[in-house]
């Protein structure tokens, strides 16, 4: 037992619980809300303010609110709180716009299918191709159902389309048309061919330099003045094309970021295998590039959903446009706050759902993002 013994490992100490409580509401309060005296006082003051605000909101929106007003807005006029009766009265107009009343079951069906497929396709139960094919069917089905004229459905012109189904159709068309266009623009911007590259750069930079509203006004209101009358295209379609081009210009730059993130060796390895340009793009480069940019793409996709509200300015009855129209009824004109709060809540729920959808796709993409050593 000479020299080396001093280097021997010490005997193991048994594991024991920490004396500092690290979990539970009490520990959280101590470390986050009352760590020092000053912070504690600030917590109390801010807490009191929040409590007062919450109490007022609660009283206005729930306790003193009128939920049902059988004869016009009479019950609302004497009440202190919110008049939710306006929603009960006007929800059909807000949700379905000027769509013929007895045909609004079509709108209900469209909204139900969108939400249903949204839930199913957010999971990874089905292959990506199946999910995309499903969305295509849902989208085409929605348009057929709205337009009618087949299967004994009464035909209904686009000027009568409105509400949530119209919002969904505008949004779906923007993404369905815009994403492929964005990919083509991004690929074209990196092309070796100078004319293709110049055209793509000019389109992207040109469109990015114009406000969406100006683009939509041009497409919907100014363009028809220059086109010969036999070339007249539906206002909805003209505005939709504006939306698609605008979305594509922004998304193209996102996709380009993804293309640049893929190491050059990937494309070279695919070249060495003898794959042609489009096959390399489809099988090797784009699957990896698009997987990288899913978070940024969902940024653009959620924005595209909110941008559908611009259509209300063009005189189309998307959810916001329909709400505006509904609240012009002199009987209910005083209860715009309640009407718009309802619409805010509707947009908030749909956009949060889309955020969750994006997060779910991201998780599913982990396998595609795995890098070889």
């Amino acid at each position, binding site marked *: 037992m000479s020299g080396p013994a001093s280097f021997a490992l010490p005997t193991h100490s048994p594991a024991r619980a920490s004396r500092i409580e690290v979990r539970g509401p009490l520990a959280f309060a101590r470390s986050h809300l009352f760590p020092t005296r000053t912070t504690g006082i600030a917590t109390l003051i801010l807490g009191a303010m929040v409590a007062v605000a919450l109490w007022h909101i609660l009283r206005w929106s729930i306790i003193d609110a009128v939920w049902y007003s059988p004869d016009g807005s009479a019950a609302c006029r004497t009440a202190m709180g919110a008049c939710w009766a306006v929603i009960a009265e006007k929800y059909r107009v807000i949700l379905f716009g000027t769509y013929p009343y007895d045909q609004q079951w079509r709108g209900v069906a469209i909204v139900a299918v969108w939400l249903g497929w949204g839930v199913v396709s957010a999971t990874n139960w089905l292959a990506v191709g199946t999910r995309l094919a499903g969305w295509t069917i849902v989208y085409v089905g929605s348009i057929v159902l709205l337009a009618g004229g087949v299967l004994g459905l009464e035909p209904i012109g686009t000027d009568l389309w409105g509400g949530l189904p119209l919002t969904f159709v505008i949004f779906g068309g923007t993404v369905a048309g815009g994403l492929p266009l964005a990919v083509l623009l991004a690929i074209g911007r990196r092309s070796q061919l100078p004319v293709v590259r110049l055209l793509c750069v000019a389109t992207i930079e040109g469109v990015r330099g114009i406000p969406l509203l100006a683009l939509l006004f041009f497409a919907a209101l100014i363009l028809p003045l220059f086109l010969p009358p036999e070339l007249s295209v539906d206002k909805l379609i003209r505005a939709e094309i504006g939306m698609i081009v605008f979305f594509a210009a922004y998304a193209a730059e996102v996709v380009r970021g993804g293309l640049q993130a893929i*190491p050059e*060796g*990937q494309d*070279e*390895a*695919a*070249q*060495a*295998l*003898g*794959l*042609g340009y489009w*096959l390399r793009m489809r*099988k*090797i480069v784009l*699957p*990896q590039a698009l*997987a990288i940019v899913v978070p940024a793409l969902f940024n653009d996709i959620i924005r595209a959903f909110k941008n559908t509200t611009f259509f209300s300015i063009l005189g189309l009855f998307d959810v916001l446009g329909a709400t505006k129209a509904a609240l012009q009824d002199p009987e209910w004109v005083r209860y715009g706050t309640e009407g718009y709060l309802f619409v805010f809540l509707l947009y908030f729920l749909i956009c949060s759902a889309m955020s969750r959808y994006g997060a779910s796709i991201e998780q599913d993409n982990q*396998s*595609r*993002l*795995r*890098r*070889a*050593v």
Partner: protein
Amino acid sequence: MGDTAARDLVVEMVGLNKWYGQHHVLRDITLGLAKGEKMVLCGPSGSGKSTLIRCVNGLEAYHEGDLQVGPTRLDGTQASLATVRSRVGMVFQNFNLFPHLTVLQNLTLGAVYARGEPEHRAIERAHELLERVRLSLADRQVSGATVRRPAPARGDCPRADAGA
């Protein structure tokens, strides 16, 4: 020399020259590689070893001279590139395996899409090649070194007349 047909050359370079800007990398390379022959190129870094190899399957274009791979003259046209690439295998310095595909897909991609082989044949052959690099798809644990093993297998996948 001279009698190339008799020696059955699979790669033949005559007076190959290439410049990167003003930098003259490949200078009058004349070289023949016979069927079954193995060749080692060595030299300091930056001396053009990789450039020479990359020329053989057209990843780099050369400026002067003549390069023939099998019966095909590599003249930069899409047709010649496609023919040569479907016959020449290449293992990259840093492997460049496709991380978003499975090992099997890495090995069958070229066969199925570039040469139009039926998928079951490509899969069969991929299994044979994996056998040769001692990798079984049943292995769940894949270490850093094993991750690279499919790379030479992929390089071998085109019934290699010439292995670069």
